[in-house]
């Protein structure tokens, strides 16, 4: 009966079943692998496929426009065309290279090298006439990508504040650098399809990420005041040929920079044609010894601590004083002066005596309180901290130099901020150049002024202002800064440049700093000329006249009338 079980049909059916099982085992393996490939490894293979199917390109974003406070355009992106070529789509490369070489004036051998790539960059920002010429030729594989050319319509105007960009559109200086992330927006990306042979495949371009416009920036810079400053600084630069000269105009109450200019300067449309020296923002990047301007700190401390009264008498040792083993000199020998006169006539010997009444610890504290030894926090790149020796490095002799601004390094912006304390009732402001950011979606961010303090009392401010008003009088060193009808507080500064291990007798920094009108100061202005030539070197004679011209024109711009004229004609006082 065993044979019965092995009927041909049964054997056949059994073996069919076995074949089926084998078939399904194999099928199971196949399905397993397919699920693995297509479901689990999808993203891996998708990105691999995208890598080989597409050439990814960035889409430049429209960089934000920079405006002045008054809405003048200072920096703007201009749409341009950048030429790429799909070389694999070009049939006659030799002929095409020849034509492009003729139109764009690119040597043929350079183009031949570029044509070895699949998608080379041929030329950026092509001018319209060359663009038209190329379009009229029947060329293959040309692809015009959008690009933007940064344009500074006012050229050198406010270049140190605005800064400049590199060919890739990244900010390299000024606001262009410090606000790069805000201005730049976000670059987009798009993909172009290609075949396995590298040929471009039209019709498959797709945008992966849309570019996002950058935000517009409104500066605190007032175009008119900036124009005045650049005009006057140009005259000074021409007349005295200093290595550098810088002017800053600030609103003392808020810290808003209304104008900032340096000479030499540069044109941000063409930054590479200027040297690093030309592009340097002397006003904030370099420190120098402030000289007598620094006496405002000493006198403020002394008055605040009530060590003296303005009318107290100080003996000035007739111009030569042996103190702590060193000889101190005054430019002009002076006998007994009041405290006011010590500052107005800028006696170093008198100032050191005031400082000694204060003591080195308190003096140092006041220097720090006035913001020296650290950056001001100005929103421009490259700001220097200045040089202030920490107290533990002070020698007994230090107090005989620092009070009148020797042996201490400051930047113009630090000096200006310290002066602003005396113009705004005792507060230390943070200088800033950007007052408003307007985002593409219409949101507006206004920069709020920041200040700390008061660091000295209103009484001290009042007293010191009166002393500084005496500087800008016929008896003071700042006589050339006088403007009839305006009460001005100011201070001259003349410092010897420290070079080759000693203080030079022929190279000076001539500065003038001041604010007006005294009753309600609108602007605080500093003019600093580094190493002026031609004989004159006093701050009162080199910088004060420029300061005066600027201040006078700003007062006119602000329409602030002179007061207590006593029949004088405004701006009648004019000496070189």
């Amino acid at each position, binding site marked *: 009966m065993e044979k019965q079980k092995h009927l041909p049909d049964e054997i056949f059916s059994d*073996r069919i079943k076995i*074949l089926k099982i084998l078939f399904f085992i194999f099928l199971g393996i*196949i399905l397993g*692998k397919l699920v693995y*490939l*297509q*479901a689990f490894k999808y993203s891996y293979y*998708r990105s691999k496929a*995208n890598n080989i199917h597409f050439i990814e390109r960035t889409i430049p974003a429209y960089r934000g426009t920079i405006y002045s406070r008054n809405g003048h355009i200072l920096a703007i992106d201009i749409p341009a065309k950048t030429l790429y070529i799909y070389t694999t789509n070009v049939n006659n490369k030799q002929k095409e290279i020849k034509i492009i070489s003729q139109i764009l004036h690119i040597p043929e051998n350079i183009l031949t090298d570029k044509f070895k790539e699949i998608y080379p960059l041929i030329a950026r920002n092509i001018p319209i006439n060359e663009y038209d010429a190329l379009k009229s030729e029947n060329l293959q594989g040309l692809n015009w990508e959008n690009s933007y050319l940064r344009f500074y319509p006012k050229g050198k105007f406010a270049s140190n504040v605005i800064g400049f960009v590199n060919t890739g559109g990244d900010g390299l200086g000024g606001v262009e650098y410090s606000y790069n992330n805000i201005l730049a927006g976000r670059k987009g990306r798009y993909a172009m399809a290609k*075949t396995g042979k590298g040929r471009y495949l039209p019709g498959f371009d797709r945008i992966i990420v849309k570019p996002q416009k950058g935000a517009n920036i409104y500066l605190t810079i007032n175009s008119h005041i900036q124009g005045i400053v650049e005009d006057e600084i140009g005259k000074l630069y021409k007349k005295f040929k200093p290595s550098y000269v810088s002017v800053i105009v600030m609103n003392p109450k808020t810290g808003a920079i209304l104008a900032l200019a340096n000479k030499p300067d540069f044109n941000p449309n063409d930054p590479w044609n200027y040297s690093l020296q030309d592009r340097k923002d002397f006003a904030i990047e370099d420190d120098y010894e402030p000289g007598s301007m620094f006496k405002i700190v000493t006198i403020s401390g002394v008055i605040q601590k009530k060590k003296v009264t303005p009318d107290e008498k100080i003996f000035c040792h007739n111009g030569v004083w042996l103190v702590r083993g060193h000889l101190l000199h005054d430019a002009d020998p002076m006998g007994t002066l009041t405290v006011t006169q010590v500052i107005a006539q800028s006696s170093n010997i008198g100032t050191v005596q005031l400082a000694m009444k204060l003591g080195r610890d308190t003096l140092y504290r006041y220097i720090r309180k006035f913001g020296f030894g650290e950056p001001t926090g100005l929103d421009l790149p490259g700001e220097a901290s200045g040089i202030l020796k920490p107290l533990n490095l002070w020698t007994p002799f230090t107090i005989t130099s620092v009070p009148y601004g020797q042996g201490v390094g400051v930047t113009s912006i630090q000096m200006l901020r310290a002066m602003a304390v005396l113009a705004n009732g005792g507060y230390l402001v943070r200088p800033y150049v950007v007052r408003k950011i307007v985002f593409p979606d219409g949101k507006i961010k206004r920069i709020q002024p920041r200040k700390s303090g008061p660091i000295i009392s209103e009484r001290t401010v009042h007293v010191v202002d009166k002393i500084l008003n005496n500087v800008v009088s016929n008896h003071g060193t700042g006589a050339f800064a006088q403007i009839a009808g305006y009460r001005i507080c100011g201070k001259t500064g003349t410092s010897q440049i420290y070079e080759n291990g000693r203080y030079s007798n022929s190279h000076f920094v001539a500065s003038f700093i001041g604010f007006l009108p005294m009753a309600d100061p609108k602007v605080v202005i500093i003019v600093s000329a580094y190493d002026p030539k031609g004989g004159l070197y006093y701050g009162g004679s080199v910088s004060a006249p420029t300061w005066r011209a600027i201040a006078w024109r700003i007062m006119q711009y602000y329409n602030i009338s002179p007061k207590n004229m006593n029949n004088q004609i405004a701006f009648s006082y004019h000496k070189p």
Partner: protein
Amino acid sequence: MSSKEWSNLYYKCLIICVTLWVWGMVMVLSSSTPSGIQNTGNAFYYFEKQSIFFFLGLGLFMFFKNFPYQKLKKFAKPFVILSFFLLVGVIVLGHIVKGARRDIGFGPLEFQPSELAKVAFIIYLADFFSRKYGKKMVLKDFTAPLIVLVFMMLLLIKEPDFGSTVLIFLYAVGLLFLAGMNLKIIFGFIGSFIPIAVVLVAMAPYRMKRIIGFLHPNQHPYGIGYQIIQSLISLGSGGIFGVGIGNGKQKLAFLPESYKDYVFAIIGEETGLIGTIGVIALFTVLVLICLYVSRKTKDPFGKYLASGIGLYFGCQVLLNIGVVIDILPSKGTTLPFFSYGGSSLVMSMATLGILFSIIKGLRTEEEIPIISSPL
């Protein structure tokens, strides 16, 4: 088999066939257009040729469907002899494509004798085993089919057409197994071919390369591993839903032979996992129908023929997909109906016609009233 069961089977099979044909033609169109432009300038060049073969195949399908399959017994030997003549002819006279002579030209159309040989061999074996059905067989009974097999394999190797060689060997093993041959003999039979295979691989450097490419594709991403890497990228990048028929990028000169042996990768890219599983499901149901029919048929020739047709499709599909998804080394096999290639399409459709003829036999055996055929 009841009338209802029978018509269910009949229409199920018909729907499967029509779906395979239509989808197959769509994929030929989709996968061949870039190569058409590249090679001939005419995007539809391959599709047009395939369409001519499709209608030829449809004619043969109709013919064999209505042709009593029992009469094929008479043609078993003539077909094999014809195949031999054509195989010799192609080796002597054939077009050389990529170093292989596989086609004989008939005017504008080419024909691959190896496709005929595969079907002829199955009919021959079905005839041979049906004569021995139910009888005890000893090894020397197999002398004739063994000689046919060895000669056919030698001619196919000479072309060279390694894929068809392997397929014919698998058909022989499969039918030998179904014929109730002792398993020891079957394993001995398989074993005796292993040294031959090793020698063949060692003799032809390109076969060696294919195996290296299979084992280590990523070590040769631009050489022998290129095709398989591109194949996997096609499949994987299709994900579950695919990029849409016609939207695939891999056929744009990335994946070589994307419209021939590797069309399954394009199916994977364009229709995703849903598409690949769909194709596999269609073929699975077709194979299962073949095996079902072979069990139901009382006539031994019909039994072997139906199961042989099941082997014919099953082995081709498994080998082709196995290569495309990188679980088998590359050997050159087509995916029936989907790969471009007229001979394969024509013979596949003719084979389906024979299957339908056997299905018809199931009905007449039960003496069920004739149902008007839709075709």
